Each structure stands twice: as C-alpha cells, then as structure tokens.
C-alpha cells in the first residue's frame, strides 16, 4: 500500500481515439479487486451511484456470457446490460449499454496490475463509437448538458475570433 501515484482516480480522454481511461490504485490484492468486479453481490454494493439501489438481474461470468442490472431511485429504474467477451484472472473485456440508449455500445477493457505488498492498480478503458458520443459520456449527469456545453464553447470561441 505504499504506492500512491493513483491514490485518487486519474482520468484521460485520448486525443486520437474516442477512449476514456481511468487509473486507480487499491489497497487490496488483484484477486480481491477482480472478485469485487465479478461477484454479483460484491459488485452491486459499490457500482452505485450513491443513493441508488442496484439489482443484478442476470450475471453469467464466462467468455461469451452476459449480464444485466438495474439501478433505481425514487421508483425510476435505469437498466444496463452487456456481454462478458473475455474474463481471465487479471482482465475483463465486456460490452456496456445503457438501455435508455440501446444503439450506443461501449467496449470496456479492465485489467489489474499487481503492485506488490497487497496493492493493485486498476486500469479501466472505455471505447465508444464516436468523439461526440464520448463527449456526451463526459458531460453526462452535468447540470450543463452537452448541448449547452457546445453552445457555450462555440460562443466563447467565436467571441474572441
């Protein structure tokens, strides 16, 4: 637990491909971090967000298996589903879709790096199908939505031009 390079989540938006990368260190073994992602009971306890109740409806961890869960708050449910493409001791490759936008599919790759001494670096990469889609992801849940964001950016850039 001595490595603190990524004690807090670090995010990177790749300039050349529509990818979001997150890196984060944990004071746990790679096996524990993987199990917290693959055991449905453990996963439901942290995937969140805060105040949301996560119910796993389907969970079939194997190459070619699939998953589905619903996150609910105040009677409103949001469904998420995808396929486990490949699961190994140190890596999960899966698709991810928010059911409210069923045509939009992200390819997620997650892998763990053993830092030794009971510490693990988690790498999570999400590839979406366009830069516009990635920007929408990044802007999701913001009080200023992506449309307002673009409009504001346009205004700022043209005002100085």
């Amino acid at each position: 637990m001595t490595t603190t390079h990524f004690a807090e989540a670090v995010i990177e938006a790749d300039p050349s491909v529509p990818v979001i990368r997150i890196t984060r260190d944990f004071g746990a073994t790679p096996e524990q971090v993987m199990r917290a992602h693959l055991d449905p009971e453990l996963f439901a306890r942290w995937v969140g967000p805060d105040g949301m109740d996560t119910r796993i409806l389907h969970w079939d961890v194997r190459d070619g298996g699939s998953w589905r869960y619903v996150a609910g708050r105040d009677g409103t449910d949001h469904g998420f589903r995808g396929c486990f493409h490949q699961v190994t001791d140190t890596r999960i490759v899966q698709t991810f879709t928010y059911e409210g936008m069923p045509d939009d599919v992200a390819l997620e790759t997650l892998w763990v790096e053993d830092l030794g001494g009971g510490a693990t670096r988690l790498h999570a990469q999400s590839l979406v199908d366009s830069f516009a889609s990635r920007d929408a992801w990044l802007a999701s849940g913001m009080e200023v939505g992506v449309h307002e964001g673009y409009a504001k950016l346009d205004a700022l850039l043209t005002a100085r031009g």
Partner: protein
Amino acid sequence: MARAPLPAGSAPGASAPDRLSLVFGALADPIRRDVVTRLAAGDATVGELAEPYEVSVQAVSKHVRVLEAAGLVTKTPHAQRRWVHLEAEVLDLATGWLERYRRRAEERYRRLDAVLAEMDDEPRARRPPPGRAQGGRA
C-alpha cells in the same frame, strides 16, 4: 449515471464535438498542460514559456499553436512582443467535464475501497476466483 442525449444531428455546430476533442487533445500533452498551468499565473511570451524546458523555443511555439487552435490560449501583441494569454473559460469548461466524470469515478471507487476492506475480514475461500490461481497474468 444516465447519459445525456447524444448531440448527433442536433449539435449547435457540426464542428463543435471536434472542437472539444481539440481541447482534450491539447491537454493530453504534459508540456502543454504545464504551459497552461503557468499561464494561469499570468501572460507570458513564448520565449519565457520555453525557458524551463529542454526542448527548443520552436517546439514550445508549436505547442502554443496547438493550444491556440483549441481555443485555450490567444496571442496578443503588446509592446513589440506577443503575449500568450490563457482563455480560462474554455479551460474551465473542458476540465470541468473531465473533473466531474473523474469525481464520479472516484466516488464509485471509494465505495469499492470499502467493499475491499470488508473482504479482508471474510474467509478467503468464500468463493474461488475464476480460472487460474492469484497472480497469474492474462
């Protein structure tokens, strides 16, 4: 958790998503991030900006042009010199999006920290990991 609607087809300007990607791209380079940080303290000339780096003034000038194309900085002539000025509002908009996303990820991983801490107390044999033994590499 739910994403904002996609801007496809109804974005205010067709080039707008590309513009934001220009900003992200400009900020992906460590020297350019450093230049932006230093400009936050005040305007500077390209020569002044280049001083602390091992790379040439020309290379730094190129970095400044990338920042300029992304709308993050502007150049203003004053007293026979060209001053590089940080457009803080453009920076705030882009970094604000990234920071919010990052913070949500961090909140999620803090919950994972708590779950992992509880796992330490559980019998390790509760559920065997899939596939090979711990420490194996994919």
